[in-house]
């Protein structure tokens, strides 16, 4: 698969974050807007949620948005750029990379959150590079991560 095309997809998804910046927290946009933090989480990723509640609210919102954009990227991939677990791995890390560093929205490291996210991603991806045959699972995973972080 063409790595440049995959990078483009990740970038395009990340740019989606920019496109929805009106909804992003105030600190990121320099405007005083309240940040909505969902503390009534009832999903299965309780370990991640417990770690995420210690994050700055604007960071939680930015990371949740990143994962939702990642889920949308997998859902809308009609050209087979995310056809294998390796490509999904690169896409998920690329989304985080952009939201965290390149996008400049999150400036604090959260080791407990990182470990919980990584465990969940690797549980879904498995240990081998294989073709994705159950795409819904690979859409649901970042969607669930977004819900747990937010």
């Amino acid at each position, binding site marked *: 698969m063409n790595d440049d095309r995959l990078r483009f997809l990740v970038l395009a998804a990340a740019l989606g974050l920019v496109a929805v910046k009106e909804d992003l927290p105030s600190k990121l946009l320099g405007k005083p807007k309240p940040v909505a933090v969902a503390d009534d989480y009832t999903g299965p990723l309780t370990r991640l949620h417990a770690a995420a509640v210690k994050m700055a609210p604007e960071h939680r919102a930015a990371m949740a948005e990143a994962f939702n954009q990642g889920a949308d990227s997998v859902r809308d991939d009609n050209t087979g750029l995310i056809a294998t677990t*390796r490509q999904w791995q690169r896409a998920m890390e690329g989304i985080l990379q952009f939201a965290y560093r390149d996008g400049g929205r999150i400036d604090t490291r959260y*080791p407990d959150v990182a470990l919980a996210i990584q465990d969940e991603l690797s549980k879904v991806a498995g240990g081998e590079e294989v073709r994705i*045959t159950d795409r819904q699972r690979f859409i649901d995973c970042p969607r669930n991560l977004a819900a747990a972080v937010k």
Partner: protein
Amino acid sequence: MPDLPFFRNVKDSLPHSSWEDPAAAYSSGYVGAWPDPESTERLQDAVMRSGGRWNAEDVAYQIGAVGQGAGKLSLLTEAIAAVFGRAAMPGPAQTIGDCVSHNLRNAILGTYAASVSAGLKGKPQVTPEAVTQGVFATEVPYWWRGHSGDGWNCDEALAVAMKHAGAVIRQNYPDVRVDLSRYSAKVAHKFGAIPPDRTTAAPFGNNLVTSVTRCRTWEECRDLVAAGHALSSCGSEGFSNRRDDWGVSRRQGRWAHAMAGMAADDRPEVHRRYGCGLILMGQSWGPNWNEGPRRIYGTNLDIPPGYFWALWDEVKARSWSAVSDVNGWRNAPLRPWKVTEIV
């Protein structure tokens, strides 16, 4: 193939076949492949039980293949050439009525080669002789055809490939006294009405087909080929032994025959000229049964000798089933995650 006799009505009276010229035999009415609704139901059950999906529309969505082949030329033959060499095609010419297992082998070979060329699978060691003999053996799956004559059904063969014998490398298997180094009608006939015992079958069950999905439209076939899945196909359509200047053979006569779908061409220029897409038929009659140009329009590539392009509109009544993957030959490990370095 609504006008062919169902398998259950003819299987007990099937003769052995043997010929030098398969084209003449099939054109004269030899029945090498037939429909069998019960086999289709059994295959569908096997797919569902294994957690797979029967309908290609669902599968194409789940693997992200929807629209992947739109407007494109998708060649699984090039994946085979890259992995095993061009000598792997067309494989040995069938000398008995085992077109179904040749078709099965070609479909498995195309899918497996696509996995290897995408970096997903390791490549098994095969000898140069095995490559010229089609890499994988056709004889072993044929042992489970359920009768002592010749001829079979595509869906039953796919079910066998999921349960008993899928990709079987061409080599000698001295422990069970079966030499599969070269295609052999005698070995193909070693079992039939009674399948092999467990000991004899043991070496051949390591690389089974993981799942199969039924394609019903051009878009489904096109997209699954583009995603790296070759197609097993049975039907009653015959074709000219002359390819036109784009490598296309038009309908002519009737063959109760199995041929794999090994490539799909959905380019606009193809639609303009023929009014539909093209599918590459993996013929199993050797390199010399037909003639005419093999160059793929707009490329410097040739289709394999003996193969031909068919118009989708002329083959859409056939059964089309995509081979999902082949077990074994361990996949590449996923590299460690870097989330903890980012977050």
